[in-house]
């Protein structure tokens, strides 16, 4: 039995929004680990993400703030045009460092820092997307002892991102979009409930 997770990091781009919406609707309140999400959006895009996903009885959702303590049961989104990082003090940090894979926020930046901070208490999830951001990050999660999960290519609108992630972290669990919420719940429910 693997260690329970305290944090779930999720990355995706094209095709990921609908998948996430379904996942969050299905998880609703009571899902114990914190979640941190990077979805590529235009740099000048308005910070709509928490609103897109909010459901009536749902999880607490917000944009992550610099130095903010990471709290369980909360979904945090990277603010547009900033990288989101995780510190070992289990707080968030933001940076304006250069783009990675033409992206800011970049999935790799979140995942690599989270792997460093959370080790085996981390689950990394890569969803549908059009480039290979996240592959290096998911490999870092696996190398630090964390669990890794990739949306199945068959159920992904855009396959390059999950394909690259699988290649970089071949031991990842492959899950259809429709089964993602259950897979997350399984990791969440292992944790002190």
């Amino acid at each position, binding site marked *: 039995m693997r260690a329970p997770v305290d944090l779930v990091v999720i990355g995706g781009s094209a095709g990921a929004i609908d998948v996430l919406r379904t996942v969050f609707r299905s998880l609703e309140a009571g899902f114990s680990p914190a979640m941190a999400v990077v979805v590529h959006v235009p740099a000048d895009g308005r910070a709509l993400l928490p609103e897109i996903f909010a459901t009536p009885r749902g999880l607490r959702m917000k944009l992550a*703030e*610099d*130095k*903010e*303590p990471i709290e369980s049961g909360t979904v945090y989104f990277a*603010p547009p045009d*900033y*990288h989101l*990082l*995780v*510190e*070992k*003090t289990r*707080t968030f*940090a*933001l*940076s*304006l*460092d*250069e783009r990675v894979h033409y992206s800011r926020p970049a999935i790799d*930046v979140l995942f*690599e*820092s989270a792997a*460093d*901070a*959370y*080790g085996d208490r981390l689950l990394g999830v890569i969803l549908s997307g059009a480039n290979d951001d996240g592959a290096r990050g998911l490999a870092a999660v696996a190398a630090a002892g964390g669990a890794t999960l990739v949306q199945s290519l068959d159920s992904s609108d855009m396959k390059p991102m999950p394909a690259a992630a699988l290649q970089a972290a071949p031991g990842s669990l492959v899950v259809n979009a429709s089964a993602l919420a259950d897979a997350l719940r399984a990791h969440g429910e292992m944790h002190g409930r």
Partner: protein
Amino acid sequence: MPGTMADLEVRLLLEAIFDRYHYDFRSYAPASLKRRLAQACEQLGVATLSGLQERVLHESETFSTLLQYLTVQVSDMFRDPEFFAALRKQVLPLLATYPSIKVWCAGCSTGEEAYSLAILLHEEGLLDRSIIYATDINAQSLREAESGVFDLARLRDFTQNHRRSGATTSLSDYYHASGSAASGRYAIMDAKLRRKITFSDHSLATDNVFSEVHLVTCRNVLIYFDQSLQDRALRLFADALVGRGFLGLGSKESIRFSGAAQFFTDFAMPERIYRKKGPP
């Protein structure tokens, strides 16, 4: 998480840099610092941070290169135009009541923000009685800032930002274009701005207050500091500001997780402008 080998190497490297060169990165936010160090290792062709440490200690030019990796921030003029619009509409009318106005632009990098502030003050008719102290720890950035020379194409990109800040003039009034297609086109900022800005070396980690000021801007600098250094910087700003003076931070920065929050009240949110408490 227990400390890893990499954490140990980072700690030793930062101690070595502080001892040898008196630059203090020990309280920088570790996650992004570590990324930058890893990039530096890659670019300099060293396999480990210990290897980097050896070169940094024995070759001061390697340290200069590393310093660029650790400190250079690319900024835009009038980045977050709504911030400058709030300064223009809400802060400058209050600062206009002072006979002279002192502004501290902390962590100015290559000067984009300092010039933006000078332009804003000029547009509001306050530049003649203002002085802007622009500080950074990176001497090379300060030299570039002081020269007032920017890539012309970049400057043209800032026009839209400037307009959205509620500009009453054209950005092109404040520079003249030079150079050639072959050698590169560049813009030189107007001398009337440059002579109102004093660029100088100052570290938020190790130096103290150097002047009383009415407005501090320190945007997207505190995100690179850990909580203790962020607290130190915010206390410095509180010490430097006159009573009821103003502090402007980056659009995703806030004082709410800091012990220094007690010195300030919210003034203009979401533009992240705070006001120092106390009598004027």
